[in-house]
């Protein structure tokens, strides 16, 4: 009857990512990305989350069975237990599905330094992440995060607050306010939880803080000279708040009755 196909729909996750990126672009952030299949070093050790530390319990991990001939590219800065020419995988090479977008902080800095490019760096990293936990209306084993990283001289909590406050106002509207609460992430010190006031209610949206000196050291940056801030937020959560979506699993349902509403 006709060859015209009625207009299709852009997924709400894409819409949130695109909107967020365009806001951070205005503050000079560019987009970086990294693999979903990560190694233990980039996902944990380099981010100051050593094995056998209770902080690992904060993120339930999908570990993968090691395929026979798989080789990870090993970072220059990685003080791996691997010896030269040894093909066997050491403990820190175990494969996993990344539990957060933070390993891209490490990969990005490694790449820049390899090319001889020193900070300042400003990146924003949208991507899919995975947690090995039972699913329900508010939990999914896969979801998306947006990570931000700023590395420069004399980076402060006030700059972090200013940057996130500007973001909240553009994203949620001019009246949006933010507030910091003390928290803990192994890769930031100090660490804060960031709440945004939206439609009269305080909602927990982001985790953030100043980049931990051990993280800078692990990529070969001198923490006495360089400092940074980092933040991360889930994509689905603000999407659910913004549109009033009641079940996170709908994002992955592939159901047009959901998709066509966006």
């Amino acid at each position, binding site marked *: 009857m006709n060859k015209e196909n009625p207009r299709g729909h852009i997924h709400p996750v894409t819409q949130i990512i695109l909107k967020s990126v365009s806001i951070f672009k205005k503050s000079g952030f560019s987009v970086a990305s990294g693999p979903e299949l990560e190694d233990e070093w980039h996902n944990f050790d380099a981010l100051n989350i050593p094995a056998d530390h209770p*902080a690992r319990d904060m993120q339930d991990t999908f570990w993968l069975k090691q395929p026979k001939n798989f080789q990870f590219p090993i970072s220059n800065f990685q003080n791996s237990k691997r010896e030269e020419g040894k093909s066997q995988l050491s403990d820190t090479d175990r494969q996993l599905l990344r539990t957060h977008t933070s390993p891209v902080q490490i990969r990005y800095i490694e790449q820049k330094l390899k090319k001889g490019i020193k900070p300042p760096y400003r990146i924003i990293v949208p991507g899919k992440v995975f947690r090995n936990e039972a699913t329900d209306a508010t939990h999914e084993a896969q979801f998306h995060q947006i990570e931000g990283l700023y590395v420069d001289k004399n980076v402060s909590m006030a700059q972090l607050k200013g940057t996130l406050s500007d973001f909240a106002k553009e994203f949620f509207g001019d009246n949006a306010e933010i507030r910091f609460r003390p928290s*803990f992430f192994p890769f930031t010190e100090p660490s804060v939880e960031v709440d945004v006031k939206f439609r009269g209610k305080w909602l927990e949206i982001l985790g953030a803080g100043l980049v931990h000196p051990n993280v800078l050291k692990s990529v070969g940056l001198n923490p006495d000279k360089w400092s940074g801030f980092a933040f991360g937020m889930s994509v689905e959560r603000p999407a659910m708040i913004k549109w009033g979506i*009641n079940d996170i699993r709908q994002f992955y349902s592939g159901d047009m009755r959901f998709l066509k*509403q966006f």
Partner: protein
Amino acid sequence: MKLSYNWLQSYFENKLPEPEKLSDILTFSFAEVEGLERKGDDTIFDISVLPDRACYALSHRGVAYEISASLRLPKKDMSWPMPETAKTRGLSVEIEEPGLCPRYIARVVENINPKQALWVKDHLESVDQRSINPIVDGTNLVMFDMGQPMHVFDADKVSGGIVVRMAKEGEKITVLSGEEIEIDSSILVIADNEGPLAIAGIKGGKKAEVTDSTKNVILESANFDSSYIRKAGEVVGIKTDSSKRFENGVSVESAKIGIDNMTAFLFEMDKEIKVGEIVDKHKFVEPKPSIKVSEKLISDKLGSSVSKEDIIDVLKRLDIEVKEENDDLVLTVPHFRSDLNIPEDIVEEIGRIIGYDKIPESKLPEVKDVQAGGDFAAKMIVRTTLPEHGFSEIYGYTFGKKGDMEIIKPLSSDKAFLRKNLSDEIDEKLTFNLSNNLFDNTPSSLFEIGSVFPGEGERVHLALGIKYKKKKFNFGSEIVSKALNDLFGKLEISESYEDLIEDFEKGNTQGVVVGKIEDDVGIIIELDFDKLISLSESRGDFQIPELDIAQNKFKTISPYPRIIRDIAIFVSEGTSSEEVSNIIKEKATELLSEGPVLFDEFSKDGRKSLAFRMAFQSEERTLSDDEVNKIMEEIYTAIGKNGWEIR
């Protein structure tokens, strides 16, 4: 972690703020209070103590320390009458593994007449702990009060001295819960001459269990290496309140405070007890190095100028000793704060205690050149272009039934592998969505761009597919071709879709096209996106597309079936279809879930015929035909009033 308001109050002469107020204060200065629950005349806080502060704050004393710092309230001196020591049976302690057990303090207490005290039972129950027997209750009380895990053995069931050693191959222990556990040489045990009495730091054993008839005991207050306890807990598959605290790094000094508190507890219960000398075995522990900070460092990191006086004030409230050396402050932290090691840790202490709300907002330095969007922009061009051709975007599941890469502990057996392609799920969702279409001739059309994991590792693929209900409506391959060629244009790729497909059909499995599924009713094409982009002449110089985000409120998808109705109407030539559909919408009530969609229009004898289709659906129940008929009658009446005619 559950904490009792009344228990916390016992640390202060001054009245604490009301529970709700205190909860706010703690949330903004220390850790999130996730719940508040009234329990009799008490209020129980559920506080989310995160791993950094778990070394001191998994106890009432730790949280009282925080309250004292936040509110500048002096804490009461917590010392109780101690008994004189007396001659008891001998006790020897030997630590074979000082690396895993830096300190072991033990003491014999004899001649106990255990008495249940109501306050003890109340205290334990307030934090969801069951009373076991008066002596064991004391160890739990001490742990929840000040954070040091304790253990107590029935001295009459211990043969010879205490040895802290690795388990021997094949050794077994029956733990307090009655379970028999095999332990190997990676597990540290507390043993007597005959065998293991306890899995060190994790769980006590049945052999020297304290029961109602116990009169004589050996108290244990020890310290175990945190990462060892974590590993061992996984090996034996047991986690306890004790192991949780050791995992987070209890201070070596706490062991002494713990055994003193436990002794005082027993003495209060029974003044006639005979208390032996303490046996304290420990290796030399280096004093913690001091931390050096300055007013400038704190102010720079916070981005807010904080005076030296204010810094010193906060530090003193946290029991941190301060020595001034020129511009530097040299700090000695209290023994239980093993989380404080570097200047940045101190920045956090100052920030949270003065309040993060005091920190101003400041801007980043201006930058001129922001990099182009690269790969991300290319993906976003795909995501905004394909919908123009009718394709809707899905985000599929990375997990599947089969694949090359297997997950060690999958959520379920159908999610045990990482997906190898996107087409399988596109295919499934196309079929699913077709059943919800209003018309037989409208296709279901979807795309996804995402990571897949075929044998050699991770690749980014793009798949798009279109499917119809009947063969005669199928224009799928034309629509796919048009969409992809438009996309290739925007990505500055000079090859056409037809070129790439031809290459694939000639048998090139290493090309851009990696999959094609085609039948009478549809087509799905899968591309290797990384390879596709490498054909682009722009070298990643793409601009990120602008997008106005959807502003509507989401409407929940109803689980109940819908009812579809058509209506055909004759109207005058000058009448627009919008006029008619507005009238229909007005009368169709909130049960109208889709449409009216104009699907037929023709002119005859100076009149125009319009045909609409619509769907009715309730979010709460299955609709009946009768209900929908009544709505249709209302619509017919309204159409008639406008001088139009139902065909």
